[in-house]
């Protein structure tokens, strides 16, 4: 069920400001792709373009083609909510819905998309909490508020919430940057597990994490502030971290950045 994502010549704008310039990359199904690069280089913008989340901001638009299994998600007759159901997203800060319990949080996507049957919801809740490695920790307090969990648990709750609607692709925008190393490890384990079912794209500032979890890595950079972000190099993670083609990539991953 995982799908291939293909970006060709994608440029993204906020009003007149060009955030990313001419990005082309192909993401294979059932793989983990890491996007790395300095702050403000357009990684997140590119990620958010993939499920049209950047359209939440007024005046945001893109040029170029973004396809998921050869279907252009920016075609005028494409329903944006359908795109987002197919391409889920996990955010930098855990954002469980504060008015909902753990159980309600997990099934929020299903319920708000019209699934009513209690047995179906119960089943989905347990299944996704198990796949998110969270079931054992919360099974006794499913009716407690989701905001009462620890940061790492909240983030896994948000991942559970995302995969509960059975997307094809999961986008993760620095999912571990607010978490401690142990919670980070738990999420990375989870990513390996989810790789069998989903295509995962993760933005991260943690290069060890990129090296650990991903199959392919894309390095984004900007020349100077105000310039659009560019994809400098996109290759197998092994290659990027051992023998990058571009000098810029090597400088960045070895810390000689500037």
């Amino acid at each position, binding site marked *: 069920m995982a799908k291939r994502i293909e970006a060709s010549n994608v440029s993204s704008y906020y009003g007149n400001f060009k955030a990313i310039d001419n990005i082309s990359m192909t993401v294979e199904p059932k793989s983990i792709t890491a996007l790395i690069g300095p702050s403000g280089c357009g990684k997140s913008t590119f990620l958010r373009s993939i*499920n049209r*989340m950047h359209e*939440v901001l*007024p005046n945001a638009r893109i040029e170029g083609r973004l396809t998921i299994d050869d279907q252009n998600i920016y075609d005028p007759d494409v329903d944006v*909510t*359908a*795109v*987002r*159901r*197919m391409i*889920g*997203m*996990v*955010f930098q*800060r855990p*954002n469980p*819905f*504060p*008015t*909902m*319990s753990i159980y309600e949080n997990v099934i*929020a*996507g299903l319920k*708000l*998309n019209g699934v009513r049957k209690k047995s179906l919801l119960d089943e989905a809740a347990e299944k996704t909490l198990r796949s998110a490695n969270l079931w054992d920790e919360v099974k006794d307090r499913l*009716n*407690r*508020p989701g905001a009462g969990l620890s940061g790492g648990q909240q983030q896994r709750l*948000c991942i559970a*919430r*995302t995969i509960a*609607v059975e997307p094809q692709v999961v986008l993760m925008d620095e999912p571990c940057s607010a978490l401690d190393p142990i919670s980070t490890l738990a999420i990375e384990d989870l990513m390996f597990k989810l790789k069998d079912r989903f295509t995962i794209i993760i933005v991260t500032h943690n290069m060890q994490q990129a090296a650990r979890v991903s199959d392919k890595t894309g390095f984004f950079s900007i020349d100077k502030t105000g310039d659009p972000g560019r994809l400098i190099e996109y290759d197998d993670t092994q290659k990027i971290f051992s023998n990058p083609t571009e000098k810029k990539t090597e400088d960045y991953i070895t810390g000689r950045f500037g």
Partner: protein
Amino acid sequence: MSLLEREEPGVVMTPHNLRARKLHWMAEAGVALAALIVAGALILGTGVGNWVLVLFVGWVFYLIGLFAVATRVEGRRSARNRMWKSLIYSACLLAILPLASVVWTLLSKGTGRLDGDFFGSSMNNIGARDPGGGAYHAIIGTVEQVAIAALLAVPLGVLGAIYLVEYGRGKFATTVRFFVDVMTGIPSIVAGLFILAFWVLIVSPWFNNGTPRFSGFAASLALTVLMLPTIVRSTEEMLRLVPGPLREGAYALGVPQWKTIMKIVLPTALPGIVTGVMLAIARAAGETAPVLLVAGGFSAINFDPFSGNQSSLALFVYEQAGDASKFAPDRAWTAALTLVAIVLILTIAAKLLARRSRIS
């Protein structure tokens, strides 16, 4: 020499010593007492004023004295801190004082007519020499008018606020927001006059064979005009407080925008919205002028808000307070107490409901 060492000669806070002397609370109480005694002697002795002036001058002396004493004991920085703290506490006390006074006056004077007659009968056929009479008709009027006004204003106001926060862009939204702000400042009598001119004189004749007609519903309309801006503004502020990532979290699940608003944004902002709505309702329940202008006031019971004059508690208080009968002031006080009690009960009930809908 470091900054710390230089600062206050005689104060023992140096890089080598973090301890500083503290003013004992007994000393502070002593300063307060001394200030009061001095002020009392000065003012009552010379006969320039009464105890209110003594309190005020005593308070000023206390602040000055406290600053002087604390400077000697603790140094200037701590003294300044102490003085400001006292100032803020007394400001808080001063702000609570009128409220306490109102509650006390209402409770002490308003219980005189708390009897079955008051809640069970109207003022129909009650003359100036009759001790009985009640506010039943006024309570009915207030409840009906405020309920109808809330039914009209709450959905309109909340939906308007949702438009302004979630959808409104560009000139139109700015214009709407501007007029909502302007409407917040409308005096209630103007709202009453507007409904009198528009509804009572122009629209109501259509429903009443060509003759204009007062009604409780017209009062509800005027109250709606008054409640709307309050509800829109407070709801708007509450909706803006809902973090963007929550909305994005819902969008990312493929939830359409309207459902995100209904199921995620509104529930999150609900306690704040309820507070705003209750403030608006409390204000509307206390309005006299619009009811007087467009419902006309009535001394008998009228259950029908759509036809015929109605009274309301606020109007009842106004009438009874100005009445020549020696029994009227008691009725006015009890009616005022009743009005405050109704608003208080409504507020508490709404808060409880809003809290229950949140999981704990």
